[in-house]
């Protein structure tokens, strides 16, 4: 038995020696290439949703008021709305116009013209006929705004720019007499995507 065990041990020793020799010979021939394990680098990029508006023309309108009749603005305001939105997160984009203080849409020295006498129309949007700025919407104060358009966001228009004309008039048909004088006001335009 001892002889057998010695034989087995000798064989193992020989095998180990041959293995070492083999590795010494094989190593240098493949020599230059050492491959490590794989490590991954994750690349994450995000494009933020964007929604902007601009008024390329008509940002100042003049009105010659006449008691008992509507007075059209001297020009229409062109409003450009641009967006880059994810239709999976955003369903609709809406454009609003509003006055900060509806009871003082335009202010004079002693008299104010309320927003119910100021009317807007966007023939390419939702109020195709003149409608007073008396709506209550998510944008602007209660009773002082007007929804100008609403557009559903889909894969087709998720990245888009549109331009619409806003017509504004001051309708004194049913108003009390407006004192002679000059009046100024600011109509604010804002879009909302939800």
């Amino acid at each position, binding site marked *: 038995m001892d002889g057998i065990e010695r034989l087995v041990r000798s064989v193992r020793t020989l095998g180990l020696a041959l293995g070492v020799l083999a590795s010494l010979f094989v190593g240098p021939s493949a020599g230059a290439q050492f491959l490590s394990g794989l490590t991954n680098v994750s690349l994450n990029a995000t494009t933020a949703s964007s929604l902007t508006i601009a008024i390329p023309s008509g*940002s100042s309108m003049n009105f010659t*008021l006449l008691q008992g009749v509507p007075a059209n603005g001297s020009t229409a305001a062109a409003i450009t709305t641009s967006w880059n939105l994810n239709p999976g997160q955003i369903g609709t984009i809406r454009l609003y116009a509003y006055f900060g203080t509806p009871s003082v849409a335009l202010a004079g020295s002693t008299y104010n013209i309320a927003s119910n006498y100021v009317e807007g129309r966007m023939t390419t949007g939702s109020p195709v006929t003149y409608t007073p700025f008396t709506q209550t919407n998510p944008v602007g104060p209660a009773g002082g705004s007007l929804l100008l358009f609403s557009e559903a966001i889909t894969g087709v228009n998720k990245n888009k720019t549109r331009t619409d004309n806003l017509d504004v008039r001051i309708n004194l048909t049913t108003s009390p007499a407006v004192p002679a004088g000059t009046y100024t006001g*600011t109509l604010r335009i804002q879009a909302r995507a939800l």
Partner: protein
Amino acid sequence: MNLRTIVRAAFALCVAGFCAASTAEAQILSNISNITLNASAAQTLTVSVTSGSTVNFTLAQGAAAAGDVSPAISTSWNLNPGLTGAVSLFGYFNTPSAALTDGTYDIASTYVEGRMTTGAVATYTAFTQTNAVGPANGSLLLFTEAVTGVNKINTRSDNLDLQINLAASPTVPASAYTGTLRIQARAL
């Protein structure tokens, strides 16, 4: 309230809160752009004769003949008291020497008298004044009203009584005479 109920309520609240938060997060607001609105209301001043625009007289030599009706004159204005101090109403004849005429004989404005009891002439007065409106010696100031913040927008109506007073005139030939009395307001 046992533990299970509390847990359920808390879960419901969490779900509700999560949903609300998600909705708020999904909203995107654009920038705000402004449109400036400039409006101007011009000053106005108008007069109209709402009734009595034709007055008939039956003349009587040596006496005053009152008109058969008193014209009602409506005066309306929308004025800026910072720019205008007063509104005045005048009546006048273009040609004082021929206030009324039949083509041959003229009755001068000296014999035509007016009265506006709600205005500046409480008693009959001849149209012989010289005013800012009308020719010299051919007009009559009917009222003057100061314009303030209280009455900067106003409409008033006044009756103008007229008579042709031949008490001191030469004899007027029998005939039919016609004339035009002009009414105009002035704000200054």
